[in-house]
């Protein structure tokens, strides 16, 4: 089977974002860039599925030229080849439209993507893409066995594929939901699906020789004019640090008489 997986280049989520003084942009200079952590989980799941069922994993990124680094990281984990679409400041709808075109060419059986990225936090692309393709979707994929389980240690995929159907356990409000979708389908990954592997040194060496096709957004022939326009960035209202209390009695006194929440 052919599995297409997406990887976005994002700013290091451990570091706090900064806004330019005029509020028109986010500061990117001096920032570290990493693969979106949800996408690393997607790559891991795709690799496990390909190992279990046989087949190829194709990594796609849409972003600046440097996003090839994040594609190489996925190739070093074990993906087979990459496609980079060079385009900047594309909104989720534009990303979904570009992916729709790539999927028309590649005809994968399954698309696995992170449920959201840690820059924009929109959580839209997988669902938009499923809507445009009229494919079924299983978002927020998870599993019942924990990340300490034997299944996880044995790198068993959470998504179960039998014939032309995939069974996916999803994180929803109030519990876990199980859906079955016919293939081809879109799966988006949540945090508890797996622990992504680290790239091995031989993996990194091999990745240098793997094919990465680079395409300009014009070559794709999609209108990516934004449907979401960002007007301004600003800092949220900051909470002030309060006081340190010396013991439980003082805490209770404050909660009762000052905060009046007890």
């Amino acid at each position, binding site marked *: 089977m052919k599995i297409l997986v997406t990887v976005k280049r994002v700013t290091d989520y451990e570091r706090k974002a900064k806004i330019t003084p005029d509020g028109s942009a986010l500061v990117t200079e001096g920032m570290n860039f990493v693969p979106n952590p949800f996408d690393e989980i997607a790559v891991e799941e795709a690799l496990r599925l390909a190992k279990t069922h046989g087949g190829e994993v194709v990594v796609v990124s849409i972003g600046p030229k440097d996003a090839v680094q994040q594609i190489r990281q996925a190739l070093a984990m074990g993906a087979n080849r990459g496609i980079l679409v060079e385009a900047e400041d594309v909104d989720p709808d534009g990303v979904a439209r570009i992916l729709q075109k790539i999927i028309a060419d590649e005809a994968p059986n399954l698309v696995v993507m992170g449920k959201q990225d840690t820059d924009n936090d929109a959580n839209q692309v997988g669902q938009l893409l499923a809507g445009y393709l009229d494919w079924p979707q299983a978002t927020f994929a998870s599993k019942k066995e924990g990340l300490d389980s034997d299944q996880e240690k044995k790198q068993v995929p959470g998504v179960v594929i039998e014939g032309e159907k995939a069974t996916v356990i999803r994180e929803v*409000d109030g519990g876990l939901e199980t859906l079955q979708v016919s293939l081809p389908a879109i799966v988006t990954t949540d945090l508890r699906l797996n622990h992504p592997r680290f790239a091995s040194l031989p993996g990194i060496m091999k990745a240098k020789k793997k094919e990465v096709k680079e395409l300009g957004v014009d070559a794709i022939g999609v209108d990516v004019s934004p449907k979401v*326009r960002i007007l301004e960035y600003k800092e949220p209202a900051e909470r002030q*640090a309060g006081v340190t209390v010396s013991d439980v009695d003082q805490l209770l006194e404050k909660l009762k008489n000052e905060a009046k929440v007890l």
Partner: protein
Amino acid sequence: MSNILVIAEVSEGELKRATLTCIGFARQAAERTGGTVQALVVGKGVGAHAETLAKYVSTVHVADDGAFEKPLAETYAKAIAAAAESAGAHVVCMAATAHGKDVMPRAAALLQAGMASDIVGFGKDGMQLQRPIQAGNVIATVELTTEVKVVTTRPTEFEAATESEAAGEVKALTVDVGTPKTTFVAFDKVASERPELGDASVVVSGGRGLKESGNFPALIEPLADKLNAAIGASRAVVDAGWVPNDMQVGQTGKVVAPNLYIAVGISGAIQHVAGMKGSKTIVAINKDPEAPIFAIADYGLVEDLFKVVPELTEKI
């Protein structure tokens, strides 16, 4: 096309309170752009919920069909698109619950609409909308350029609507769902007698400082019982499998804003803080005085939680 359509959510037979907060958003939007506030309820046997919703909006569209017994994005998105057309809606909105996040972008694709996720407020004019990005460290003001605009709203940021004076009308909606390619298999509910995390007025959360899973029932649950509180957790302990996924508070989990949030043994990573910094009063208990949680806590207690949490439970 100038009306606002709110997509209601029914879960386990109950109309979710988050729906009323989305109606709260829709009323504010209607003041800015004109038009009526309407609602859509989708499901099987949801007539009573339609009657309830009619107390809040001018028109309730009801897609009541066996095909909608389970909330599948594939079929529900079609109902939303059909209702948006029937309502003449220029804004289609739903609370940013797990179901809302799943179905609304798909509906946006069907409507060729731009979408803004997880809205927390309005910008200066018209339908300028504010949304948190970068784990809540930045607020972006956005504008959707399409005629139909799809929005999900963060339930903690909008007041639940109160009933209107005049009851609205209820209209049946017929939807062609075709042959769905998605089948519902099972729902494994996390059994809990406690208030729902998103709605609770008090939340007690535990983190890695608790050291092992057994300390959740030993320390956190008795305190939560005393306060009739919901229980939350940091990502670290959810990932470790100590508590169900459903309890994770944070940018990628649940966003909560209770009157009182008690963080026990939680360091305060930015992703966690993004999920609880809207709380009215925050208490942090941690033995590490350098823990970042203290920078946003109203009351910090730098102490060994194994000593002070039982004492707190005892004295409340």
